[in-house]
């Protein structure tokens, strides 16, 4: 076995045809694996895949101005679906506020929730070891059902499914920040972008981060009448607030209770309700409220005011001093990169009727409205931004690692060629990483993504495979210098001898990584290490010897006095 391999290597490196075949084959494999990522999308990239959790949360957001009983109705609707799930152990409904804070909620602003139109529903599931269906598939299955039935109860209701993130939390998978100078234009554009998202395959939970505009009534105070009647505007405001909102007008200290006991005054529930939502009903109700003036006369409030209907003031949002609105969407078990590109293409093609579109930066857009010449910008943020940053930074770390190793080798060998061979040999493990992801994708039920952890695995691989080549070259060197072997024989003998420890360490790495490969988050790292190591072994036992043979080893090893040995070269 040992001798056979040695002879095979010896024959291989000395035959020019086989040498060329090996190198050509490597080149083809390399190009093929690169093609798998970029144009053909056979291997998909994503920052981190979904993680199987024991809990997730459903957020229900009704339109602003919705009442708590409407919110409760939506929450009850969701609960009827939750209660059909066998794997749910318990579920909690938080009406009008956020659930106890978690990582995802921290970024999504769950702790600031304090209004009648919001609810959060926490689902606790059975332990993941005893459950067949992973939480992300459960979410995927429940989402359309719940959204179809419960979002339709009231217009503009948005129900989103929030899972604990596998890695760092983000606002949403896809966030389109729409910047502009007037609120009206931003609102219009945001609505259009949100429509595009809703029609893009793979995007779910589309939401615009803005207040809906709803009908309100404004009380206009007739100041002349107020002054003439001997009352004050403060008095008028207080009475209105007392009557309908109610107020704690005094407190009572208590020995028994944990808090001070407030004394709360308001109109009774039956007497404060307006008969319906219109101007008349409001006026009738207000007419029975009276104010006492400074001489003890009772003045009906309606004498002093008139009421006009108006629209509510929506919240104005800004980021880094520019006014903006977010349009957010989650991805349904797919990478956010591809739906984003699709949505962007649709925007580029279909928005040109009213906007002039320019591309800025890598993916961002600048839209100029044709009729008004107002300028808006669409900037992508969220997981996309984080992914891009992470991949760029990890890419930079990868290049830095290559340079560092190259410098280290140059210091050690004092030769650029040898260092180059080691580097090239290590770099080729990328073929294994990509092909490995492709194979895993075929065998796993859902998409197996090339993730940030795959990149980390790849970076670690560079070190591992350069170690293989290094041990090989070092041994060749000592064989040539100490035993005076000929170059081809030395390479072949070294390759064959070193094959055993190389195989051993590779087997150790592969075995240690098989357990990694099963994890949702670190699966990419495991797969990268397993298949990358296989590629690294092939590269250091086949390609590196060929490259070594083709280089002028005696020169690179600095054998000045032993140059004579090469006379035996055939």
């Amino acid at each position, binding site marked *: 076995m040992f001798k056979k391999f040695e002879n095979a290597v010896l024959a291989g490196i000395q035959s020019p045809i086989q040498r060329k075949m090996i190198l050509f084959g490597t080149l083809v494999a390399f190009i093929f694996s690169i093609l798998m990522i970029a144009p053909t999308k056979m291997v998909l990239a994503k920052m981190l895949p979904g993680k199987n959790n024991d809990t997730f949360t459903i957020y229900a957001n009704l339109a602003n101005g919705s009442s708590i009983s409407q919110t409760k109705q939506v929450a009850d609707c969701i*609960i009827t679906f939750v209660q059909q799930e*066998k794997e749910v152990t318990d579920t909690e409904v938080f009406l009008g506020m956020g659930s106890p804070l978690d990582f995802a909620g921290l970024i999504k602003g769950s702790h600031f929730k304090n209004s009648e139109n919001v609810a959060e529903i926490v689902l606790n599931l059975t332990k993941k070891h005893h459950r067949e269906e992973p939480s992300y598939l459960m979410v995927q299955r429940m989402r359309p059902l719940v959204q179809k039935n419960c979002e339709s109860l009231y217009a503009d209701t948005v129900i989103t499914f929030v899972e604990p993130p596998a890695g760092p939390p983000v606002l949403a998978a896809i966030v389109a920040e729409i910047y502009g100078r007037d609120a009206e234009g931003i609102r219009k554009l945001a609505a259009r972008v949100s429509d595009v998202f809703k029609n893009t395959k793979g995007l779910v939970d589309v939401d615009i981060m803005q207040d809906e505009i709803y009908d309100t009534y404004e009380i206009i105070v007739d100041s002349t009448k107020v002054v003439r009647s001997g009352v004050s505007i403060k008095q008028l405001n207080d009475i209105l607030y007392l009557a309908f909102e109610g107020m704690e007008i005094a407190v009572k200290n208590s020995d028994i*209770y944990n808090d001070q006991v407030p004394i709360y005054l308001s109109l009774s529930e039956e007497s404060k309700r307006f008969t319906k939502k219109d101007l008349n009903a409001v006026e009738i109700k207000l007419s029975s409220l009276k104010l006492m003036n400074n001489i003890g006369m009772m003045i009906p409030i309606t004498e002093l005011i008139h009421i006009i209907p108006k629209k509510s003031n929506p919240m104005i949002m800004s980021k880094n001093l520019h006014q903006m609105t977010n349009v957010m969407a989650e991805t349904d078990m797919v990478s956010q990169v591809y739906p984003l590109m699709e949505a962007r293409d649709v925007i580029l093609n279909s928005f040109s009727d009213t906007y002039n579109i320019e591309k800025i930066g890598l993916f961002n857009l600048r839209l100029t409205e044709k009729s008004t010449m107002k300028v808006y910008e669409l900037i992508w943020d969220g997981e996309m931004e984080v992914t891009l940053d*992470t991949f760029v*930074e990890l890419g930079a770390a990868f290049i830095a690692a290559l340079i560092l*190793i190259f410098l280290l080798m140059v210091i050690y060998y004092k030769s650029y060629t040898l260092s180059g061979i080691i580097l090239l040999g290590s770099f080729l493990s990328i073929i294994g990483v990509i092909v490995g992801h492709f194979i895993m994708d075929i065998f796993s039920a859902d998409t197996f993504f090339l993730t940030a952890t795959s990149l980390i695995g790849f970076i*670690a691989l560079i070190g591992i495979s350069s170690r293989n080549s290094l041990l090989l070259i070092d041994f060749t060197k000592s064989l040539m210098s100490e035993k005076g072997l000929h170059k081809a024989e030395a390479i072949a003998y070294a390759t064959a001898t070193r094959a055993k420890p190389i195989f051993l360490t590779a087997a150790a790495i592969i075995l240690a990584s098989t357990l990694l490969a099963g994890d949702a988050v670190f699966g990419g790292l495991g797969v990268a290490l397993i298949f990358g190591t296989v590629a690294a072994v092939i590269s250091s036992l086949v390609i590196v010897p060929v490259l070594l043979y083709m280089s002028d080893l005696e020169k690179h090893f600095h054998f000045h006095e032993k140059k004579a040995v090469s006379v035996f070269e055939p």
Partner: protein
Amino acid sequence: MTHHKPYEPKDFAGKLAKAFLRSPLTIVLGIFLLAIGYLALSIMPREENPQMVVSGSTVIVALPGASAAEIEKVIVRPLERKLKEVKGVENISGMAMDNVGIVNAAFFIGEEKEGSNLKVYDKIMQNSGMFPKGAMNPIIKPLDIDVDIPVVSVAFYSNNPNMSKTELYDKVKDIQHQINGLANVAVTEIKGGNKHQFNIEVDINKLSGYNLSMGQIVQAVQSLSYSVPAIKNRSQDNKIVMVGVKNAIENEKDVGNIIVAQYMDSPIYLNQIATVSGSYDIQNFKSVSISVQDKEGKFTPLQEQVTLSVSKLQGTNAVVIANAVKSELESYKESLKKNGISFVITRNDGERANEAVNELVFHLLLSIVIIAILLVFVLGWRESLIVTFTVPAILAITLFTAYLTGQTINRITLFAFLLSLGLLVDAAIIVIENIHRHYHSIESQHEDVDTLMIKATDEIGPPTNIATLAIIMTMVPMAFVGQMMGQFMKPIPANVPVALIASLFVAYIFTPYLAVRMLKKPDHSKGSH
């Protein structure tokens, strides 16, 4: 190749091997390493995800009566400009609503928390004059992941339908105080439940019937709900005499009997025009409810509950705190049961962390066993045993270093260990393989065992050093990856290099030490491969 003089090692690998090969302290060192590793494993705080340094502050300024557009101009914009001056701020987001403006400053990931909070606080305080007249004092809320995110939450619910709405809240409030007293608990918070309150619900028809205004009710109630401290006086023989004025309002009856006005000389009592009750806060629109799946697979109907959440101090062990809370709750179980109150633990990050950590520790052990079996087949069982011993020693050093540098045991740390496992047996395998080769080679059969060991170790030293250095080099740039992901993955560049360096030392010290005692020199007359 054969040396007849004692072999002089050239590399530090050989020097280490030589120094420890016959030293009686080597075995002590080995035991010591394993002990500190075990110590670190048991006392290091455990958590599911690594701690991320995320800093940010939210400034909330209320200006009652102002519209969103006004708030934007007078509060949000000036505030945003001021916060922009703060160094280290990555994003500033502002929200202007009717009556209130909120500005949030998010710092770059990794900016130190205390310093960042102080900078924002300073900036606002220095410029407190910029807020408009009538604005309330700014509220500055720093973001604190440890304190803000609870590790345990418990839902209490009543099985007794007759229980009043406030009773559950009161009971939980008592428990909250006890749990807050446990070691390392930072914040406890109650969600849901209703507080006591006297409600005066006025009937608008009666109000207008008696020709009264709401203002009169306010005045009447306020004039009677005033309380004063007791009066202290002295008697003639210098004794202190305390005279206290009893509160006029003790219960809802007292409130109901307040005279609001006189009408034709007959008093009008509050309970004539309003329903007065001592009940719960009716204006609170928030509520929390729960539904639990019972053993038959049926869900209980949604019922009111009170959730108590507990968060921990930074750097403390979530597992310990969760267990402490759990056992504290157990002690109330009986008395709660008597009152018809049940509870469910709805979040237990401690348990989750412990499970994740234990699962990974198990994976780690499994990997070691698998590698050991592999080595038995290739190298023989003695060699395999030697390599297998080096692994816990290396992991022990790495764990202890992690403990000293203030890290916690979390998923990522353990993944870093799993990742390095494949790499760190390398050095030992290479050394043992070379020893094995020398042992079985005919050239070295006349050398004594010690020299052979040192030579075999020394020979492989330089390339192993440089190769390990190469792997460490690949990890170094990863430490500089910024953003959330960089923070999240930090345990990998922090621990893998340590493990690799430890693997070199352990391989050079312990592999020859164990080999000399465990391996038998083959009889070359039988021949070898």
